[in-house]
């Protein structure tokens, strides 16, 4: 063979010029400022919310007591008597801090916002229905818990719940829809009939029945919601795969003996991402809405969990305490608005009219 030109040399330079369609869309998304900033804000807030126990907590970060160092945030429950405190059960670190001020060598470092989401009236020093102020920024609720603290923990739970729910129902919906569109024929027919029957199951009744038998927890709720939530995506995926399969690049892949699995996931799926990505934010909104609704009705997460639906529900029972209603509704509104901005920008970035030739 002669000296054939190698591919490597120019490759590095070329790779920068040749942006994949997805990269171009990301750049377009970035240029839509409102959606992009909403995305940055939400992602930042979500990441920070995983470190909430360090920022907002009634457990101390560090306690030094008689020469020994304790990390209650990480160690969990420590009885009050350990620190020579005369309280039943867990230590009250806020009081401990006040007490240690006068004791030499002993000290407590509290998180910046020293109220946890699970404290209630049984803990000394808590007051019910406290108005928003310097201590409790958004006041306290009917059991003396700090509303601000519960709100932020609830943010993490709501968003995690909605994202996990969306991913789970997409995994099922995309796979089944993809197979329906790709294999067609009898498989498609039978699955379609099954979906039609499945879709008529009354979700709320099933939910009520299930939660009367078992106390739903975070993951069980996701599983149950997913059982009903995967169907929507199959419609889009089925149509996408049905259309894409008629294109000759699929014929080419089959003619070289590529496996069905590779054709579905490597060839067609990357060309069918548009509905998946554009509907993702709206599915997350749906997930948050479902959780709020279920919590509101009392079929959701078990009570001490800081959840927005339960907060709205309790708030509405105590309408006069305006902060208990406005805070969760405001948080819900802001979060959903941010996600809508993101979804809107994604939709615009994926508008086929812009890149119609590239699709």
């Amino acid at each position, binding site marked *: *063979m002669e000296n*054939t*030109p*190698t*591919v*490597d*040399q*120019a*490759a590095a330079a*070329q*790779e920068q*010029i*040749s942006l*994949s*369609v*997805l990269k171009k869309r990301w750049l377009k998304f970035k240029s839509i400022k409102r959606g992009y900033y909403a995305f940055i804000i939400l992602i930042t807030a979500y990441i920070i919310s995983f470190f909430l126990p360090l920022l907002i907590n009634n457990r101390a970060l560090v306690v030094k007591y008689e020469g020994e160092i304790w990390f209650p945030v990480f160690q969990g429950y420590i009885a009050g008597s350990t620190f020579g405190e005369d309280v039943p059960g867990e230590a009250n670190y806020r009081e401990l801090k006040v007490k240690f001020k006068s004791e030499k060598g002993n000290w407590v470092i509290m998180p910046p916002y020293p109220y946890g989401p699970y404290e209630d009236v049984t803990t000394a020093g808590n007051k019910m229905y406290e108005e928003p102020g310097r201590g409790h920024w958004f006041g306290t609720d009917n059991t003396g818990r700090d509303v601000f603290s519960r709100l932020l923990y609830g943010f993490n739970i709501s968003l995690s719940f909605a994202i996990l729910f969306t991913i789970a129902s997409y995994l099922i919906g995309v796979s089944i829809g993809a197979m329906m569109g790709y*294999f*067609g*024929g*009898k498989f498609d*027919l039978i699955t379609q009939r099954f979906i039609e029957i499945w879709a008529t199951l009354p979700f709320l009744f099933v939910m009520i029945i299930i939660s009367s038998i078992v106390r739903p927890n975070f993951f069980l709720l996701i599983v149950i919601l997913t059982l009903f939530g995967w169907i929507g995506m199959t419609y889009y995926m089925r149509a996408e795969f049905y259309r894409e*399969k008629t*294109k*000759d*690049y*699929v*014929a*080419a*892949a*089959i*003619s*070289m*003996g*590529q496996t*069905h699995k590779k054709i579905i996931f490597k*060839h067609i799926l*990357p*060309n069918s991402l548009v509905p998946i990505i554009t509907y993702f934010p709206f599915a997350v909104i749906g997930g948050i809405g479902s959780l709020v609704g279920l919590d509101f009705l009392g079929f959701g997460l078990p009570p001490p969990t800081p959840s927005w639906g339960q907060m709205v529900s309790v708030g509405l029972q105590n309408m006069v305490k305006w902060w208990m209603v406005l805070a969760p509704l405001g948080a819900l509104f802001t979060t959903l608005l941010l996600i809508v901005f993101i979804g809107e920008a994604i939709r615009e970035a994926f508008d086929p009219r812009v890149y119609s*030739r*590239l*699709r």
Partner: protein
Amino acid sequence: MSDKQKLVDVKNLKVHFPLFGGVLSRRVATVKAVDGISFSIKRKETIGLVGESGCGKTTVGRALVAILRQLYPDVEIDGSITYNFNGKSVDFARLKPRELRKYRSKVQMIFQDPFASLNPRMTVAQIISEPLQLHTKMNDSEMKDRVGWLLDKVGLQPEQAYRYPHEFSGGQRQRVGIARALATNPDLIICDEPVSALDVSIQAQVINLMMDLQEEFGMSYLFIAHDLSVVEHIADRIAVMYLGNVVEFGESSTVYYDPRHPYSKALLSAVPRPDPHRQRESRIVLEGDVPTPLNKPSGCGFRTRCPLAEKSCAEEIPVLEEHALEHWVACPIVKEKNAG
């Protein structure tokens, strides 16, 4: 012509697509896209397959690369497509997908629409190396070299390997498609109207490239087109199709200059040719529309538009008969006339 030279022998191939309808998805009709055709392709030979739109050319091509069953699970395929790979004969119409996989590298396809036949989410390097990954044991650097070499062969710069298809022109994309088909050293390449989507100025370039490649690598082509003048240039033999059947098959010059079947005559009279040897014939204009393969006329498919049609044409589907040496025509009326 000994059988040894034969690469593939298609015998009485039928491809029917059932159509389903109604609530219970019952079979309501059958599209007889290909309805009993026979021809053969020799090694290093180019067969031209011509016919009007919808006559089943693409379906024949797809049957030969054996992708119909995967594309349309309901399809009914009958007859045989016997390949002869180095003395081993295999019937693509009957092989199981698992066994087929071993032979897939031997038969490749170039597609009509260069915008749809390349995956827009893959770089050219990924597209061309996919068949290599499936059929060879090359490592990454060997594969890179091979991709660069293939791109060079089809007249593209190896540096373009990391670009995406949408950054290429139609002609360049078709060259990428050719490189992909060439990657595994196939014995046969099905070319499904490879130039009909391209500018006229580029058509000739691509056709010349394909002829050069055939010269160099010695594969056979099944060249599908509806333009006879293109086919006459590249093909050794020509098969003329009408409504799922081959109506005439023979040496390219014979079919081109001495068509026997009334349909071929009509098709050829439409081609403007500056040809001094051929006396000026008046253009034959066919009456009526092409019947659909859903609802074929009985007997000869062409009889509804044929100037020579007789009563007997409605009775049987005419078979190809050798009217002259290596010149096959499916029309008993023409045979009678020539004999008488």
